[in-house]
């Protein structure tokens, strides 16, 4: 059975072409799927359990998608809601949905799929040897772990759809799971389904017009056909096959719960100037494991930024920060009584090696150098106190003892900025489960324009 999936864009919150979305609805899709997140912006979202995207942008786009769903009369699914897909961001997305149901006068059944993992479940899985590390994996330190999520696959989305939901708000899922769920349920070619889902998960990134968003994929018994819906956008065998490179460490294999996709034998052919047909991808069943993501607090930070424009200091920026750092460690020890291992103080030279650090192999002659001081300590109070202590020296410290006190450029007052918690990713593991729903839970709510039924 052919299954037609409409993908409005690669992620909710980045925008899409409204006319292309209308064309997608007119093409009578069987389901509308969009991704709501990724780890790409770093560990903060997962660590804090909040969305990275603005509520206003998310709500404005979700409004259009809820209207498209009502017009098409098919389910609307969002995966990894609220960037990180914790229970808190699923509920954030649900609140937006409830507001919109009221504003749009819609009556909708909403299924929430929760992916957050209690520590006790991880502890039990560890005790039963059901957790295996991927490469490279941090040591698991359960006491220090904060938010933990498991990445749901197609089975959990299918369970959510089986509730008869009009809208599924899923916590952390794999990038492909929401798109793959319905075609797999209807018996379409598994290799083609997972491959097509991977191609479509970034929206129009697989086409010649990456920012246009909207993509339509037809899955069937032998493979899939992909088509971008924006005017002037085209999928070519090259644009589609090249998408397997994107953010994938292995362009031929993709691991999912319950197996992996192998696209070594995939054949890409142009159907016409804008559509591409793909056949020959294989699904290789394996043990049912779900990937885990976790974050923990690694400290609290305060930063300071000074700009060196004086040519003498620009030319000697490295020597200056080395001398300054040594002096500051002494000041921090004598005035605050803090040993060197109780905090971290680092100065990065923007204009010298700010982006690449020790890997930088070019030396230039910069006009100015930004000196970014980063203090990391066990509490925000200590980090802020160190920031205040070093502030006057970052402003005035001389390169040698026998020169006048310099004064550098501070762009801000106060010169220091408290950044709050520094989170770090603390899991790169998979967990084996016998029942796909053993690590996930579903809640179904009927929303009416007046509120919850």
């Amino acid at each position: 059975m052919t299954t037609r999936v409409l993908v409005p864009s690669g992620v909710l919150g980045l925008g899409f072409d409204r006319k292309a979305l209308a064309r997608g609805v007119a093409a009578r899709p069987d389901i509308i799927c969009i991704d709501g997140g990724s780890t790409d912006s770093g560990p903060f979202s997962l660590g804090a359990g909040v969305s990275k995207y603005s509520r206003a942008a998310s709500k404005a786009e979700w409004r259009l998608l809820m209207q498209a769903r009502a017009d098409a009369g098919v389910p609307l699914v969002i995966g990894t809601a609220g960037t990180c897909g914790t229970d808190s961001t699923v509920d954030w997305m649900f609140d937006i949905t409830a507001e919109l149901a009221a504003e749009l006068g819609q009556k909708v059944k909403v299924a929430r799929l929760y992916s957050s993992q209690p520590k006790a479940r991880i502890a039990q899985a560890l005790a039963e040897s059901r957790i295996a590390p991927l490469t490279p994996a941090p040591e698991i330190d359960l006491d220090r772990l904060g938010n933990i999520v498991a990445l749901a696959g197609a089975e959990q989305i299918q369970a959510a759809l089986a509730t008869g939901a009009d809208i599924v708000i899923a916590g952390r899922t794999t990038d492909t799971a929401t798109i793959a769920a319905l075609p797999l349920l209807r018996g379409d070619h598994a290799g083609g389904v997972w491959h097509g889902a991977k191609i479509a998960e970034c929206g129009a990134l697989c086409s010649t017009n990456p920012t246009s968003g909207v993509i339509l994929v037809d899955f069937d018994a032998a493979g899939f056909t992909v088509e971008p819906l924006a005017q002037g956008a085209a999928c070519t065998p090259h644009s589609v096959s090249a998408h397997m490179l994107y953010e994938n460490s292995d362009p031929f294999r993709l691991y999912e719960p319950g197996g992996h996709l192998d696209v070594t034998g995939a054949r890409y052919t142009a159907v016409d100037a804008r559509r591409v047909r793909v056949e020959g991808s294989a699904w290789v069943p394996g043990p049912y494991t779900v990937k885990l993501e976790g974050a923990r607090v690694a400290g609290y930070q305060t930063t300071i930024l000074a700009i060196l424009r004086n040519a003498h200091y620009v030319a000697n920026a490295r020597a200056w920060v080395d001398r300054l750092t040594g002096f500051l460690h002494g000041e921090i020890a004598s005035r605050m009584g803090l040993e060197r291992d109780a905090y971290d103080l680092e100065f990065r030279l923007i204009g010298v090696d700010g982006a690449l650090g020790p890997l930088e192999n070019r030396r230039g002659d910069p006009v100015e150098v930004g000196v970014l001081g980063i203090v990391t300590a066990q509490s925000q109070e200590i980090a802020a106190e160190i920031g205040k202590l070093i502030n006057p020296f970052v402003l005035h410290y001389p390169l040698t003892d026998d020169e006048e006190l310099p004064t550098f450029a501070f762009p801000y007052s106060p010169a220091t900025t408290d950044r709050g918690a520094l989170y770090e990713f603390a899991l790169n593991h998979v967990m084996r489960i016998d029942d796909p729903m053993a690590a996930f839970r579903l809640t179904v709510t009927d929303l009416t324009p007046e509120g919850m039924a």
Partner: protein
Amino acid sequence: MKLGDLVLKVRSKNAGPFWVTIDIFCDTPEAYARVTQGLATATVAGLYQVPEQLLKRFDIPDLRVVKFSLPRPVIQGSAADRDMHGAQYAALLEEHDLV
């Protein structure tokens, strides 16, 4: 000749928080041949200071792409990370002199 002057594009990006992947897109078969023959895996490992055995290399003639994937030199978002998205790592290969 610098690699970036020979090829269409060199792109790097995170592949999850623990890996970075670098794609070299060649627009001609000649450029692809020069990259596959002239760029040693050991050279790339040296540029990114990772052990060669941890570096994955894919030569993909159908796409005229040479792809490298490596464990991130520092984990994404950790205190020592300087490039959250890993997109500037490409500069080292782009500026590498092909012999």
